[in-house]
């Protein structure tokens, strides 16, 4: 693995808790790893997993999703709905062979600037240890290691075709 590898992490956060928490981390002058790109959404309940896939397609090595703690949701139930979907989506990622640790979840409230710092640092370390998401980058490049193994399509002569019909 490249010693100097720095992961790119897309962080999808809810505007009411985690975004404000991240803001607090900033105004409190807390230092944390600069690997996350914060994307603000109305609620974790709004997070469509197309966003996660899009992040990977755009070269993210990991994704962090964070919102309000249970019972703290601005919309009462958004995070509960999201929690169920996360649980199921993780299993799907695992099943197709994507390390589920590349997609991380957390609850960070508006008062938890320090927790945000810790979460970002931990997640960055974890993704860094997983290394670059080369599998997906190969998909983006459109190349497969086994592309050469694929057999040539069988050529059927016209005569054979006529016979097959008969």
């Amino acid at each position: 693995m490249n010693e100097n590898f720095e992961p790119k992490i897309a962080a999808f956060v809810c505007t009411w808790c985690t975004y404000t928490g991240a803001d607090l981390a900033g105004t409190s002058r807390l230092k944390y790893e600069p690997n996350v790109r914060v994307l603000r959404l109305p609620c974790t309940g709004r997070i469509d997993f197309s966003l996660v896939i899009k992040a990977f397609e755009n070269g993210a090595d990991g994704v962090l999703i964070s919102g309000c703690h249970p019972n703290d949701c601005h919309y009462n139930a958004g995070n509960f709905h999201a929690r169920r979907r996360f649980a199921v989506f993780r299993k799907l990622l695992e099943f197709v062979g994507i390390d589920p640790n590349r997609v991380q979840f957390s609850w960070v409230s508006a008062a938890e600037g320090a927790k945000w710092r810790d979460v970002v640092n931990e997640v960055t370390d974890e993704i860094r240890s997983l290394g670059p998401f080369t599998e997906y980058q190969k998909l983006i490049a459109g190349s497969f290691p086994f592309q050469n193994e694929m057999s040539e399509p069988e050529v059927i002569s016209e005569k054979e075709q006529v016979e097959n019909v008969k």
Partner: protein
Amino acid sequence: MSNDIKQSSEAKKLARELLEQGKVSAVIGYAEGTLKGRVQTLIARNPLDAEKFIFNEYCVNNLAVYLTKSYRLLKSDKPVAVFLKPCDIRTVTALIQEHQIKREDIFIIGMSCQGVRNGNGLSGKCRACRMHNPQYSDAVIGEAIEEKEPEVTDPFARVKEIENMSTQERWQFWTKEFDKCIRCYACRQACPLCYCEQCIVDKTQPRWIESSAHPVGNMAWHLIRAFHLAGRCIGCGECDRVCHQNIPLSLLNMKMSKEIFDLYGYRSGVDPEAKPPLTEFKMEDNEEFIR
């Protein structure tokens, strides 16, 4: 074979009566296909057409798909009758749960079923089938069939095999499968629960899923398709059957069904009163994976 003829004639008779008496506006059923061993869908609106109905071991397709995609064309003040095998009836249950159709708008003609063929052999889903007698229907065609232990006792055997692979192997397996995809969307068209009027893959502003048959788009399409069916798929296996690239799509759906059952104890298409699991939540849901 004589059983087939008997069941077909019963089906014809019932369809004719329903149409003659004006109880239904149309009957959706199977008719002889253009090739031996194939059947096609027939939507009969008058009693004469009802003579063409058949039911045999080749009636593999799930006609519930016509209850969403073509339903607007058929809808009138009268219900629409449809031939459904016991497994297909679960689709109607799921559609009722999702408020896509009303029970009273559908007249279910339940077909007792010994299993159907897909190509040369018994269809994969029938090998593990435990439902031979239709439930929840308005009329039943065919004699009651004795319930017996299926040939395959664990329908999730193949899913478990893949679960036991390493992450790397799973990635290899699925990328290789998805690489075959030509994005014809037959899986979507044949799926009775893929009823969105505009599919996310057809949206262009923004384009969420690359629509050419590029590995990135294929991965995104199959992940999103599977996720949109999570907790909804009833396992009719139509996606597998119609995929001429032979991608084992139903494995993804089965994996989702398995996880939904493990996590929330829910089986799709069983209880019309139940709420689909991803539309509700419990305070005490598992959150081990959350930091």
